[in-house]
């Protein structure tokens, strides 16, 4: 499995597989040192060594060019063989999933320091925990305790695992190929020429992006879950109907759950969480979302995205939650409000430059007809409708469990529809998974 995982990653770029091996070995060594350290200071030293080496790697490959910008230093560094090699690696391609596996590794080292986990003594086993290929490049970010025990348990091929895994993966593929990729074409058309579009198209574009990013990331998470299940490994659910959330705090309990819980356990709670009064809570929330923005990407717009989420979180937590109305309609309104808030904040997430969001805001709120309109193919509308109905109203359980309710022929009718849709209506323009870049 370790070889397969490294082959999977190294096939794309061998240098990055070597980088992952290097950081894994450092973390493995540091964890052992922490465990055997005679004093707290020594343990703390090894903990910080590991944290700093991980952060340094992240900085070098993800934030270095963001920090350098287009300064003359950057140009000078490009003229030297070694630094040019690093800049080329970092400038033009970020190691896929570096933020994911770094966070997974960090959670292990902190848990060992907190004595919540025993360190792994076999370096190869630890390397597999970091590199397990289904969740390597875009999560979910698993914890050592849960994944490790499954990875090294004895597995035998089970029909149930295989069929459930394939069902989950098929649904994930449908979300990615038929929904996310087709919506991406529409969104890209809008973003490539914002000035030409009017208010209606602008609303449509940001609506489409909200579903593109959801279908894309949820689709990947399902593919990861499905393929892991083929090997008998049950990965955590990374999404739980986020667009039904009634507030932003609830939304972040349902969206990218593995990252949200990571931030909760390793930043929010240690900083003080909600136990030390509203000021500390506000600080902890803003710190978490600032870090989350930075985690998502080395760009000012990503930091703005994170901070927007932070302020919306505080708004819901301190103000909106005070309104106590027990009413079905009010609940629906809250759901809609949360969705619209998130959808609007995604303008920063998708922006290609810092001035782009303000252009879009103007388009959204100042009515204009636009020279051209966005065109959404009928089949995309149909797919989106099916997904929305299933996700919001029909599918109460995970897809594999939900499918068990149906008879054999009913299930296969659905599979036939999905397989044909994937084969015939997939988006033609290449759109790598949105979260691959993180």
């Amino acid at each position, binding site marked *: 499995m370790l070889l397969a995982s490294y082959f999977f990653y190294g096939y794309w770029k061998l240098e990055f597989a070597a980088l992952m091996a290097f950081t894994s070995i450092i973390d493995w060594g540091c964890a052992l040192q922490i465990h055997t350290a005679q004093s707290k200071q020594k343990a703390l030293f090894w903990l910080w060594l590991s944290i700093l080496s991980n952060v340094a790697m992240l900085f070098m490959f993800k934030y270095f060019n963001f920090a350098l910008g287009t300064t003359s230093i950057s140009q000078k560094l490009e003229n030297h063989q070694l630094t040019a090699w690093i800049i080329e690696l970092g400038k*033009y391609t970020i190691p896929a999933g570096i933020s994911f596996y770094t966070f997974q590794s960090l959670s292990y080292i902190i848990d060992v320091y907190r004595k919540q986990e025993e360190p792994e003594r076999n370096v190869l086993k630890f390397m597999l925990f970091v590199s397990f290929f289904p969740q390597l490049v875009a999560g979910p970010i698993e914890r050592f305790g849960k994944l490790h025990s499954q990875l090294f348990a004895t597995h035998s091929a089970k029909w149930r695992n295989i069929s459930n895994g394939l069902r989950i993966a098929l649904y994930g593929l449908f979300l990615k190929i038929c929904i996310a990729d087709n919506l991406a074409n529409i969104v890209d058309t809008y973003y490539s020429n914002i000035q030409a579009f009017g208010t209606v198209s602008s609303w449509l574009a940001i609506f489409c992006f909200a579903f593109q990013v959801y279908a894309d990331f949820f689709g990947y998470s399902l593919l990861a879950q499905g393929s892991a299940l083929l090997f008998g490994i049950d990965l955590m659910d990374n999404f739980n109907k986020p667009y039904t959330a009634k507030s932003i705090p609830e939304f972040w309990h349902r969206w990218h759950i593995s990252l949200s819980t990571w931030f909760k356990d390793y930043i929010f709670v240690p900083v003080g969480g909600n136990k030390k009064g509203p000021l500390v809570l506000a600080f902890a929330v803003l710190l978490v979302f600032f870090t989350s923005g930075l985690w998502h990407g080395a760009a000012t717009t990503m930091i703005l995205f994170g901070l927007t989420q932070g302020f919306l979180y505080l708004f819901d937590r301190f103000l909106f939650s005070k309104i106590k109305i027990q009413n079905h309609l009010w609940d629906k309104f809250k759901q809609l409000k949360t969705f619209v808030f998130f959808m609007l904040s995604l303008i920063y997430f998708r922006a290609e430059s810092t001035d782009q969001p303000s252009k879009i805001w103007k388009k959204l709120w100042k009515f204009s007809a636009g020279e051209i309109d966005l065109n959404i193919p009928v089949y995309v509308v149909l797919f989106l409708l099916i997904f929305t109905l299933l996700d919001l109203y029909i599918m109460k359980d995970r897809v594999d469990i939900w499918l068990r309710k149906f008879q054999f022929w009913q299930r296969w009718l659905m*599979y*036939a529809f999905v*397989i044909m849709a994937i*084969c*015939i209506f*997939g*988006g*033609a323009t290449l759109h790598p998974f949105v979260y691959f870049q993180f």
Partner: protein
Amino acid sequence: MKEIVKKITLRIVIFIVILISAEWLYQTFLFKEDVKLYCKNYFTNDSIINNCNILYVGESSNTSFNPWSDSQNYSISEYLQLFLPEQKVGGITQHGYHLGLFEKLLQNLKKDKGPSVVVLTLNMRNLGINSKFGGNESHFQQEVLFYNQNYTPLMKRIFVSFHFYKNDNDLELEREKVKTWRTQYLANSIIQSKYSTVRQWLNEVERKKYERSIPAVYGAMADAYIKEFGFLIDENDERLIALNKIIERCKQINKKLILHILPENRDYAQQLFGSELTQLMDYNIDFLQKEYNERVELVNNYLISNGTDYTDQFYPTEHYNARIRKAIAMSIAKKISIKVNPNLPIPNNQTFNPDVKQKFADSLWVYNFK
């Protein structure tokens, strides 16, 4: 175990039935529309291939003209038709295409149908780094999937959806380009360049720009010439391997192949860098001449142009004025009549027949060739 095998077999059978149904549905109702969408020129090219006896395969050099000086806007293939009035010349113009893509496109050639002569243009710049990692490459690779005769329509569509072709994104292409400029040496057993790599050369130009010893207007032009022509080819070049496949295929299906080397703006390269850049260009052309002279009918027009014959004066392209387009057509027509079909009269200005197409009937000008 038996139970599992039974289950799997049943599901595989159903899966195959689904795929066959999807293939039928797609082929019957949607394929043609998709071809129009993803491979715009497919049907036009197919019709040209099947309705001519001389096929001219080119890129933008075929149809580009100089809007300021050209009184005649005929493409090279149209001139060729005018020189060979008894023949039916078909011209395929695929902007930005290179040998690797032409190799896929020409898979549509049939043994007993279509042209007996194929004229293939070879643009030296297309063997260079800038072209190999060009931004349109992924789009083109997707387009030529539709010419592949080994795939069924549904397979082609699945490959489009799953991006099962060379599909590097812009950043990856840029990275490869920068890396190659930094690591590929501008030297071999014959050539020794003053600069060991393109990167080093570009740095030198950058320094000169900073010192203002290169006028600002020529700065970008100098960069472009180095990036486009700063390379040395060898027999392992992926695009020459594609050319070899075309040669093989043409042999197999009895088509006479004429390989035509396009003129390059050597004049301006000389003016910008003296012999530093032209020695690389000349080496590359010599290499091609030696490599292919015996294997195909070769027409080498590398040296027929002056710097002012090019429409783009500040960037190296193969967009010529009418004088050069006509000269190219003439040289190809001569090659066809001498080497391929001796029954044809050797073309000259007298055989040039502007009445061959109604739209050419008002041709009044005469030009003396070099």
